[in-house]
Structures are given as C-alpha cells and as structure tokens.
C-alpha cells in the first residue's frame, strides 16, 4: 500500500468541482483509492463520500492506494492535488 499526504491550499477547500475532478482522477486507477483523514477514510471513487468529508483550506488530506498500479496511481493523484487543490 502507498500513502500520500497533502495540505489543501485552495481557499474553498474540496468543494463540488474539485471533488468531482478528484473522483474522476481516482476512477482511472485500477487499485483501491481512499481519501480523507486518518480517522475517516472514504472511497475516493465515490463523490458523495468525498464531498461529505468537507475538507477545508489548511486541512491535511491523506490518500492511500492499494493494488496493482498503486505507485503510478499515487503519483498521478499527487500531481492532481498539487495542480487543483
């Protein structure tokens, strides 16, 4: 399993649009992708769960990847986070 962490800099946090983009990006991975905080991780391929995290600017977000393309997936999503959040 690979895990990455990211501090959200977008001033609106994970609002609807980036939540949608994040889910789309995660959905391209074959492996299991989870997102959230250590106490509350949700399936990153399901938009309702991701939006309900209501992560804000300054919050640290954790993502875990588990499965065959986990390394690749982690670097794709890391780039996504840097560009969009």
């Amino acid at each position, binding site marked *: 399993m690979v895990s990455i962490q990211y501090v959200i800099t977008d001033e609106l*946090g994970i609002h*609807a649009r980036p939540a*949608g983009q994040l889910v789309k990006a995660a959905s391209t991975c074959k492996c299991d992708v989870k997102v959230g905080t250590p106490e509350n991780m949700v399936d990153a391929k399901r*938009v309702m769960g991701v*939006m*309900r995290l*209501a992560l804000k600017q300054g919050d640290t977000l954790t993502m875990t990847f588990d499965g065959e393309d986990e390394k690749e997936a982690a670097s794709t999503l890391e780039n996504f986070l840097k560009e969009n959040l």
Partner: protein
Amino acid sequence: MTKHYGKSIFPAVAIGKIKVIENLPHQAIETHAENSEEQWQLLLEAKAETDRQLEELFEKTSKELGEELANIIDVQRLMLSDGDLNDSLEEMIKIDSLSAAEATKRAGKEFSEFFASLDDPYMKARSADVLDVTNRLLAQLLGQGGQTTLYDSTVIVADDLMPSQTLTLDRKKIAAFALRKGSASSHTAILAKSMSIPCLVQTDIPTSLGTESDGKDAIVDGEDAVVYIEPDEAVLSEMQKKIKRLEKERAGLEKMRGLETITKSGKKISLNANIGGVGDLPAVLSNDAEGIGLFRSEFLYLDRNNYPSEDELFEAYRKVTEAMDGKQVIIRTLDIGADKKADYLNLDDEENPALGLRGIRVCIENEAVFNTQLRAIYRASAYGNVAIMFPMITSVWEVKHCKEQAAKIKEQLKNEGVKTGEPELGIMIETPAAVMISKDLAKEVAFFSVGTNDLTQYTLAIDRQNSKIDRFYDPHHPAVLEMLRLIAKSAIENGIWAGICGELGADPKLTKSFIEMGYTELSVSPGYILGLRELIREMA
C-alpha cells in the same frame, strides 16, 4: 396589492408575471413492488435516461453560461452514478422490496439531509444538488420529465430552485426571482447575479401562494428588497421610474471607477461599503469602495448552533482586512438583540426588543463574548487598517467601559507576543440620547458613524417592522435632520470625523446636505457607491 420582504441578491428592479414552481412531483407513489428485479431494471433505465438529459444540459450550459455553472451539472452526473447512492438504492429495491420510485425518494431525502447537517455552509448548500438529481430521476420514473413554460417576462416564485431547473428554464424569459428560501450562495443567487436580474431570497411570501397565482402581476425591487404582488398604480409608476433611473445610472457609472470622490470645491469624501461578511467582498471591490464603513459582524453569529470561535472570527476579519489592502475596515462589534437572535445566545423574549438588551448592552453584560470578539479584531488589525465601532451607545460610561476593555485586550495580546495594529475606536450614534450628549462622547472617540435607521426609529417613535404605520415614517423628518446637524457639529468642534452608515447615507436627495453639515464619510451598500461618487463630483 400585497408587499413581501426578503434579502436582495442583486439591486435591479423588474416587472413581470408570476410563475410558481413547486419542487416535488405531486403524485402518489406505490411504496412497495412485488417484482424487485423489474423495479431494478426500471431504475437502471431511468438512470440512463437522466444521465443522458444531464449530459445534454451540461453541453448546453457550458456553451451558453460557461464552465462554472456547467460544473454543477457535471457533479450531479457523478452523484447519479455514485456508488454509495447506488448501494443504497439497490438495497431498498432488492432487499426491502420498495418500488424504484419510493427508493429514489427515500435515498434523495437521506443523502440530502446528510449534506444539510454539515457545518460547512458551502456543503450545506450542496444538499440541493443531491435533491435535484434524485428528483430528476424520480420525475423520470413517474413519467413527468416535462418543461415549464414561462411568460415573456416572468417572476419566478419558489421555495428555492433546483440547480438544474434554473439552467433548464428559458432564461430569456426570466425577469426576476422571489424565493422563500435560498441564500447568497445558492445556485439561483449565483445565476441571478450572472444574469444581472433582481433576486430576493428568504422572502416572507406565504406558501399558500401556489400555482393558481400564475399570471398575476408582480414587481421585484432588488434595491429595497421588496416584492409587490398585484401592485397598485402608484407603486407601478414609481417602479417604472426606478427602472429607468437604474438603467441610466448603470450606463453612466462605469467611468466613475478609479476616480477620487471630491467636490468641485475640493471637499474629499470617503465612500465606503456596508458588508455582512466575506461573501460581500466581490461586490465591494467591483464597485470600487474606498473602504468598509460598516462590517456588520453579527452575521457571523446568526444561523448557527454555537458561538463562533476566536479563530473563526479572526479568519473572517483578516480576510476582509487583507482584501481591502490598507483601506480602512470598520468592524462593528456584535449588534444583536431580541429581534435578531440565535438560540444559543439565550436571549429572553422581550416585550420591547427595540428598547431591550441589544447592541453594546449585550456585550457589556456578556464579557466573555465581547472579549473573544475584541481579541479576534485586534489580531486582524495587524493585517491592515482596522477600526472598531461600538453600537447602541447611550451614555459616556459605556464608551469608557468599551475603551477600557479594548485596552485590556490589546495589553493581553501584547503580553502573549501576538501582533496587533492600532485600531481607531469609534461609536455609532443611533439613539437620541447619544445625539444630545454627542459633545461629551466626541471627547472619548476617534469618530462617529450615524446609524440612521435606528436613530429615525427612536426619534420618531416608529417601529420599522410594523408596516401599518409606514405613512408616519418619514426619514427626512426635520427632527432627524436636526439631529444629524447636531452630531456633525459636535464632531467637528472636537476634531473628530463623522460619517453616516444607515440607509439614509445612500439617499441622493440628502448627499449635498450631509456634506454641508460636515460629514466626510458615507458608508452604503456597494451598489450605490459609483452613483454617489458621480453626484459628489458634480457638487460645488
């Protein structure tokens, strides 16, 4: 004629015919179904069709209205295909033997309530998206996917519109929105602003006004936040004049941007904006305000279940202060009372809320609440030019008390090693008592800002909430103007500045008198700034 009040999102005026839009399909639904496999197939087909409609709407919206609104639809498509929603529907249909329609209705309710329960106001507003997409699916299952036809100039009346509804409706025919619910961050509000049409939210239009009222005449006055249904001749002609004035103003005002507010004889006036929160900043900046003359800090305390934390307040104050980039931001300390209250504040119901525990009295009685706010303001003052203003003052001792409290907080922060600025301290003059002792009050503070709404109410003994006595309410009453003269005189004699932040400050009929009296600051809703600048620059 009936008259209804709300909160205005965009200051335009429009006349049209009412179209009432109700949200849920009104049709009895079979709750259970015997053949669950058949129901599941029905659901999958309806989902595919709904997805197709949304895709079409997405294309149309991104072409006509741009990315931001189109993304709403895109997120809804993701919601429709969401795994959690799908699991929940499958369980209800296959295990609980519910009909596809009933399962959709229940899932929509459950998922939207979850969003509505979140603290974050943005996420709260997303519950509308969930309901929107599940209602669309439900309408599809019930065979009611039809279009709403509008009049050529339509005033839409609804609780709130579903995001996809606002995008599906024929926008060329929408003249205005009048919503019972909604907020400044709801989709309808965003759409109304982007279309520059009047939109009132949280109006008191009764729910009894249903589709049988379709076709009645209505006027939405976004400048004064009033909806008139079946307006009489007098109102109609007044509003037609107003529409003409607004059109003319908007065309001429653009050239005022970036100019100084100064009379021909060289009197410089600060034209500031009144705001309620961070959300008003775009309007402040786009209307070229010279500062914030009144930051109504109470909105950070209302519509919630507990006191805002010091950090939360600080963040809001800092954001506004930084956005204003060195221009003055005058934060009014908490101004609430029995007429504007939140449950957690535990304010008793009062027989005379206007004369009760309100304004500075609440802060003097609740030291902890006052101190938290003062700490947040002082911390924010390190980020720009902040001033503090105390509301509802009637006596000199209250001002001395507030100053002592402010000094204590400043000292406290200094000892903690926290950076602060040097905020000017001022007071609102909004009681006849404060006017009569304004000479003494002026010796205590750096500025006066006149709250004309309360001052008029207290001077004329008129309750502004009571529309039955409207004819006795005269904001130009000589008694009020005499008070304004006295306040300015006391300020000038004691070497402090005086401004006006009540509604009267934006009244172009009085601008000249105010400047002659000696006022050097006017703080108004952002939309009035450029108009007043033009007026002042033409004055001798």
